[in-house]
C-alpha cells in the first residue's frame, strides 16, 4: 500500500479545504458576527497545518493502483468531514462534536440532512461554510484536486482517483487526460452555477440567500438557510430552482457533448430520456393526488414538480411539507428516493442508468425464459454493456440492501416507527436529506440517538462514494501484502 501517496492526496485536499474555510470569515465580518471569526480562522489554520504535515513525505515515483485510489478517496472524505466540522464545534454553534460531524458529512456528501432544529440562528459565516460543503462535495473533492493539479505526468494512475469518487456504473473520461477531463467538468459546473446565480438575482433574491441556494442546488445538497427551506421564496425563484435542480441531475457528459456541438449524440442518451420521463410521470401522478391541497391546478403542478425534482435529484429542498401529503404521493416520493439522479451528475441514489440497465436485464431474462437458446445482448446508447458491468450493478444492489437493512436495525432503536426509520436510512444512504415524520421537511435529525447518528453518517458516506471506497477501508484483503501473507496450515484432526 502506497501510504505516502495517500498521505499526499489527503494533504492536498486539507490545504484546499483550509483555503475554502477562510471566506466564511469575510462573510461573518460583513455581518458583524465577531465572535465566530476567531474559531473559523483557528479551524482553517488547524486544517492547513495538518494538511502541510501530510504533504511532507515526498510520494516519490512508486505507482499506485485501484486499492490506493479507493483508500485515498475514503480517508480523504473522512478527514475533510472531521476538519470541516471544526468551525461549527470550536465556535460552539453546534455544541456536540458528533452533531458537528454529522452536519459536515451531510454537507460534503450533499445529503442535506440537518441536526439543527433552528437553522436561522446559526451565524451567517457558518451558514456559508455549511452550504459551501455542498458545492465542493457535489462535483467531487478529488476531482477538484485533479482539475487544479495533474497528479502524475503521463501516468494513468490518477484515473483510479477519478473512478473511485465519481458515481455511476461505468466511469469514463471526457477527454484523454484526467486533468483536462476534471477541468472541463468543473468548468461546466461553475458555468451552470453562475447562470443560476444570475437568474435568481434577476428574481430579486438577496445575495446571501442566492449563493447558499446555488451551492445547495449545484451540489444537489439541500441545506437551506431558512427554517421553511425554499417555501418562503417567490414562485419565480422556486421555478428557477426546480429547473436547475433537474439540470444538475443530468449526466455532465451530455453537457460536454452539447458544448462540443454533438447535439444528436447528446440527445440519443437513453438515461437522459428515462430521467426526464420519470420526473414528468411522477409529477403528473402526485399533482393528481394532491390536487385538493392547493387552490389552483397551476400551483399544484408547480409544487409537485418542485418536490419531485428535489427528491429525484436527491437535493432535498422543500417548498411544502410533503410529510402531510396523501400516502400515494409519499410512496412515489420514496420510490424516487431509491432511483436517484443520473450517473455522472452531482445527484445520489441508485442512479437512473443502473435502474435502466436492471430493467433491460430483467427484460432479457424474460425473453430467455421463452427462448432459452437465443442470445441477446444488453445495449445502452448504442453500445454493448458487458457482463462485468452488469455484475457490478447486481453486487451494488446487494450491498446496498444489506447496508440499508443493517442501518434500519440500528435506527429502529429510536422507536420512531418503521416509516421514520426507513425514510431516515433511505434519505441518508441516497443523500437526499429530508425523510418522513420527525426527520421530515419540517423537522430535523436532532432527536436521533448518537448511535443512529453515527450509522447515518456512515450511510451518507457510503451513498455518496458508492460503497466501494469504504469497503476497501475495512476489508483486510485491501491492506495485506497483495496476497503474500504466510499462514501456517492448520493440522488436520486425525
Amino acid at each position, binding site marked *: 500500500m502506497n501510504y505516502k501517496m495517500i498521505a499526499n492526496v489527503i494533504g492536498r485536499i486539507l490545504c484546499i479545504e483550509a483555503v475554502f474555510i477562510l471566506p466564511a470569515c469575510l462573510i461573518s465580518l460583513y455581518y458583524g458576527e465577531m465572535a465566530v471569526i476567531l474559531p473559523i480562522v483557528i479551524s482553517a489554520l488547524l486544517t492547513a497545518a495538518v494538511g502541510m504535515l501530510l504533504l511532507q513525505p515526498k510520494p516519490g515515483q512508486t505507482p499506485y*493502483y*485501484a486499492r490506493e485510489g479507493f483508500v485515498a478517496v475514503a480517508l480523504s472524505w473522512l478527514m475533510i468531514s472531521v476538519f470541516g466540522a471544526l468551525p461549527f464545534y470550536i465556535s460552539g454553534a453546534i455544541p456536540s462534536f458528533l452533531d458537528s460531524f454529522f452536519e459536515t458529512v451531510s454537507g460534503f456528501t450533499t445529503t442535506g440532512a440537518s441536526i439543527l432544529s433552528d437553522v436561522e440562528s446559526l451565524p451567517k459565516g457558518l451558514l456559508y461554510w455549511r452550504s459551501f460543503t455542498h458545492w465542493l462535495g457535489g462535483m467531487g473533492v478529488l476531482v477538484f484536486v485533479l482539475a487544479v493539479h495533474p497528479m*502524475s*505526468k*503521463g*501516468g*494513468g*494512475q*490518477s*484515473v*483510479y482517483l477519478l473512478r473511485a469518487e465519481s458515481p455511476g456504473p461505468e466511469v*469514463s*473520461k471526457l*477527454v*484523454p*487526460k*484526467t*486533468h*483536462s477531463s476534471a477541468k472541463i467538468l468543473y468548468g461546466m459546473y461553475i458555468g451552470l452555477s453562475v447562470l443560476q446565480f444570475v437568474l435568481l438575482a434577476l428574481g430579486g433574491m438577496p445575495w446571501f440567500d442566492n449563493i447558499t441556494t446555488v451551492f445547495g442546488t449545484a451540489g444537489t445538497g439541500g441545506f437551506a438557510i431558512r427554517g421553511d427551506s425554499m417555501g418562503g421564496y417567490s414562485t419565480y425563484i422556486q421555478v428557477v430552482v426546480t429547473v436547475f435542480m433537474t439540470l444538475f441531475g443530468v449526466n455532465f457528459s451530455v453537457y460536454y457533448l452539447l458544448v462540443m456541438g454533438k447535439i444528436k449524440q447528446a440527445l440519443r442518451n437513453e438515461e437522459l430520456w428515462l430521467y426526464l420521463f420519470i420526473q414528468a410521470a411522477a409529477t403528473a401522478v402526485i399533482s393528481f393526488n394532491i390536487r385538493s391541497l392547493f387552490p389552483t391546478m397551476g400551483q399544484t403542478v408547480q409544487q409537485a414538480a418542485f418536490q419531485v425534482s428535489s427528491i429525484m435529484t436527491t437535493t432535498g429542498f422543500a417548498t411544502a411539507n410533503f410529510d402531510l401529503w396523501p400516502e400515494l404521493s409519499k410512496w412515489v416520493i420514496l420510490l424516487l428516493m431509491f432511483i436517484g439522479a443520473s450517473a455522472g451528475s452531482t445527484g445520489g441514489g441508485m442512479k437512473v442508468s443502473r435502474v435502466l440497465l436492471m430493467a433491460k436485464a430483467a427484460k432479457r431474462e424474460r425473453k430467455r425464459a421463452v427462448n432459452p437458446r437465443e442470445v441477446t445482448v444488453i445495449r445502452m446508447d448504442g453500445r454493448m454493456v*458487458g457482463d462485468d458491468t452488469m455484475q457490478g450493478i447486481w453486487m451494488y444492489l446487494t450491498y446496498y440492501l444489506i447496508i440499508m437493512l443493517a442501518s434500519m436495525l440500528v435506527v429502529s432503536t429510536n422507536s420512531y416507527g418503521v416509516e421514520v426509520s426507513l425514510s431516515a436510512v433511505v434519505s441518508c444512504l441516497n443523500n437526499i436529506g429530508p425523510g418522513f415524520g420527525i426527520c421530515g421537511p419540517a423537522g430535523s435529525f436532532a432527536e436521533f440517538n448518537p448511535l443512529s447518528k453515527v450509522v447515518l453518517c456512515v450511510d451518507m458516506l457510503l451513498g455518496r462514494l458508492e460503497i466501494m471506497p469504504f469497503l476497501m477501508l475495512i476489508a483486510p484483503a485491501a491492506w495485506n501484502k497483495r496476497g503474500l501473507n504466510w499462514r501456517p496450515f492448520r493440522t488436520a484432526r486425525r
Partner: protein
Amino acid sequence: MRIVIIGDGKVGVTLTERLSKEGHDLVVIDQNKRVLQEAANQYDVLTVHGNGATMTAQREADVGRSDLMIAATSADEVNLLCCLLARKLGVPRTIARVRSPEYTEQLPFLKEDLGLSMTINPEYTAAMEILNLLRFPAALKRDRFSRGRAEIIELKLSPDSFLCGRKLYELMQLTKIQVLICAVERGETVMIPSGDFQLSANDNIYVTGASRNLAALVQKMSIAERKIRSVILIGGSRIAFYLAMALKGECAVKILEIDEERCKELAASLPHARVVHADGTQPETLISEGLAEADAVVTLTDIDEVNIVLSMYATRFGVYKVITKINRIEYNDLALKMGVNSIVSPKSISCNEIVRYVRAMNNTSEGGVLTLHRIVNEKVEALEFSVPANAPYLEVPLKDLRIKQGILIACIHRKGKIIIPGGSDFLRSGDSVIVVAKSDELYSSLNEIFKQ
C-alpha cells in the same frame, strides 16, 4: 497534440508510453478489451474499443480533430486502410507500419496516393542497425547522424586499455584523434561527463565523432577488430530476410529456421544465403552448423528469452561478435549483466523514429529535431537539431553560452565537416548540432537547451 494510435500491440504499447510521457493527448483504438483496460489503467489515455479501420471507431476516437494518426496493427493492409480513412476524415498526418518486404517496392506510390506522412518498418530498420554493427564489430552500438557522417558508438573499456585511469581532457592529446566521449555508463549509473572525469575499467563509453575518426580510435585502442566474413542468423524472421539481402556479397550468411515452409520461402528469395532447416535452440545443432567457426551470430527468434540464452551460449563459445534481438527493453539491464553486449530492439528503433517525427511536428519554430537516438539503454537521448537562421546564441563561443545543466553539445556538422567543439567554437546558421541529454527531459527544439 492530439494523437490517435490504432493497434495496441508491441509497438502500440511502447508508443503509448513514450508519447504520453511527452505530454500529448492520446486515444488508443484496439479490438482487445483487456489490452485497452491495461492501457487506460497505466497511462493517461482515452480508449476506444473497435476495429480501427472502420469509420465508426475512428469517429468515436475523433480522428478528424486529431493532429496525427499512427496505425500500428499487426496487419500492413489494415494499417494502410486506417490511414486512408483517417485522411478522409481530415487528419493532417498519418504514420503506418508496413513491414512486409513485398510492399517495399510500392511504398513511394502508397505514400503519395494515400497521403502517408511516414511509414515505419521496424524489422527493416533493425536489420540495418544490425548491418551497421556487423560492419563495425568493435562497437557495441552505433547510432548515426548527419546522414551517416557523424556517429555515436558504444565501446567497452577493457581493464588493459590505455585509457583506464585517464581523465577525459587527456583523450585528444593521447590519441590525437578528434573524438569526444559524450556519455559514460558505470554499473547502473549514467553520467554525462565533463573534462575532468576519470575513466575506469569496464566503463561503457559512448564516443562521438566523424565515422572515420571513430574507426581510427578503435584501432588506436587496439580493440581487436576483425572483419566479419561469416554470419549465422538463428531464426528466419523478417529481420533475417532483410539482413541477409543486405549482406549479399559481403559475407557468407547461414540462416537456421525451424519451420520448413518458411525455410523454403527463404531459400527461394535468398539464393546467396544458406538456409538450414534446424532447431537453432539445440546446442548440438549449433555446433554442427559451425557456431564455433562463425565470425558473428545474430539471434533473431521471436522469443526474447531464447535469444538471450542463445547469445550467452554463443559468447561462451568464443564467437567474436554476438548480436541479440530483444524486444522487451525491460530485459536489457539483465541481459547486459549476463554478458550480452550488443542488443537491437526493433520496436524501440521505430518508436524513436516516430517520437522524433512528433517532436518535429510539435516544434513550430526552426531548430527542430532532425535525428533522435536513445543511448545507454534508453537513459540518454542524443538529438540532432538543425540550427535556425537567427537566434541569440549564434556566433557566440560555446564557453559563453548558458546551457542547462546536464546537457552536452557533442558535435557540430557544418557543410560536410564534423567538428568536435571546444570552448571557443560557436554555432552558425545552417549547422546541425548533436546534443546529448538525460532522458528525463525531453527537448523538441534547440532553443530549449539554453537557460532563459
